């Protein structure tokens, strides 16, 4: 079986070039879609009859939460590939994903908090999704802290890869346990962040925003990964030749 295309992709000079070419496409498409979704969500979509206009922050909150989990899975898969097949570029990709995922998680928490204040008067509530996002943030921070604690980059790559894999197995367990935990108390209300009764008109801007966020992810990862490649390959001849 010819794996040459794969090996070519995994070689830093090629990856650096390819990423440099596709990043602007991701970037502009992402910007376009996000603007479209914002306009649609703020202006065109109808207000929810229960929650008024406040719910509109859902259009940022839900995609952020989705992306925070998506990024963790991508990070774990990349780390796993790097660990099992010893491909340095995969480790670099995992490292590039982490701050992006953490930012999405933080954005989800912030928008959740902003949603909560006018609706229910508190800046924080122990809702299933917010609590899960908080724990996910801890997982991201732990991953980044572990990476940062090693001087040896190989050990940093491989140790954090093991952590990411252990984490990704835990994420469903954490989700389930948090959900279980919130359903136990009769006093606490059901998920406060239930999507309002879904109409198609509300779903469209949501999906456009998710698409926009996915493309943003593509752009951000491409840019960060190029930076990682530069940093890791700083002594390599191909870089000196290209400069």
């Amino acid at each position, binding site marked *: 079986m010819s794996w040459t295309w794969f090996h070519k992709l995994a070689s830093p000079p090629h990856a650096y070039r390819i990423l440099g070419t596709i990043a602007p496409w991701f970037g502009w498409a992402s910007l376009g879609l996000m603007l479209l979704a914002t306009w649609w969500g703020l202006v065109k979509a109808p207000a929810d009859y229960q929650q008024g206009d406040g719910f509109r922050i859902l259009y940022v909150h839900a995609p952020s939460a989705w992306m925070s989990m998506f990024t963790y899975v991508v990070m774990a898969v990349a780390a796993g590939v790097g660990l099992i097949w010893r491909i340095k570029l995969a480790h670099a990709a995992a490292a590039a994903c982490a701050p992006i995922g953490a930012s999405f998680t933080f954005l989800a928490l912030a928008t959740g908090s902003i949603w909560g204040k006018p609706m229910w008067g508190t800046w924080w509530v122990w809702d299933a999704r917010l609590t899960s996002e908080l724990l996910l943030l*801890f997982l991201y921070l732990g991953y980044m802290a572990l990476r940062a*604690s090693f001087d040896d980059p190989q050990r940093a790559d*491989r*140790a954090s890869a*093991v952590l990411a894999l*252990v984490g990704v197995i*835990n994420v469903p367990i*954490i989700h389930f346990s948090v959900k*279980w*935990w919130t359903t136990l108390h009769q006093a606490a209300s059901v998920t406060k962040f239930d999507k309002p009764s879904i109409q198609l008109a509300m779903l469209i801007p949501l999906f456009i925003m998710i698409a926009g966020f996915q493309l943003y992810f593509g752009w951000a990862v491409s840019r960060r990964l190029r930076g990682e490649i530069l940093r890791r390959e700083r002594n390599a001849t191909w870089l000196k030749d290209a400069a």
Partner: protein
Amino acid sequence: MTAVRTPTLAAAKLVFQRDLTLAWRRWDEVAQPLIFYVVVTTMFPLATTPDLSALRVIGGGVVWVAALLASLLALEALFRADVEDGTTEQWVLSGQPLGYLLLAKVAAHWVLTGLPLVIMSPIVGTGLGLPTSVWGVLMLSLLLGTGTLSILGGIGAALTVGVRRGSVLLSLLVLPLAMPLLIFGSRAVAMQMDGDSPVGALQLLAAIFFMALSLGPIAMSAAIRISVEN
């Protein structure tokens, strides 16, 4: 020279025995997490109220949190000495499946730290107003929980061996992964106290424990190899 190769189970038993022997000669180190456990549970009434009926409401949770923290305290040094003096390297080179040896070590560690916490829990629980009716559930949930935590902590300790200020990092890595244990364990105690059946929560704890038992050694092996390869 016709030497007989040691069977894996016998090798694992040797590791288990060795750690117990070593701990016996340094029993003061073994007592520390237990003392910490009692001190921390004492902090809660002092910080809130001496009223047992009020403490009872969060008592199960407090015992659980203290047990997790005390276990973590003991875990940081789990592999440190063995990696520093080269013993771990010899384990990697022994030709025995590394996962079994590491699991034996974690088991010894649990007997020395987790088990005492479990046995002490009715006593500290009483200080927090927990009735005797919950003792069984409390101990069973902690048995499963501390066992799982020893394995998770073993993975974390293997990853962070030799890192400066490793104990803080270890807690940061392990505690988020231990949240499900905390939720199911303390909930089981509360359910028992309220007259509901804790069986569901205990079953979930057991499921997590067995998953950790089967997958944990793989992750620990990988982590130890990474720590030793340099």
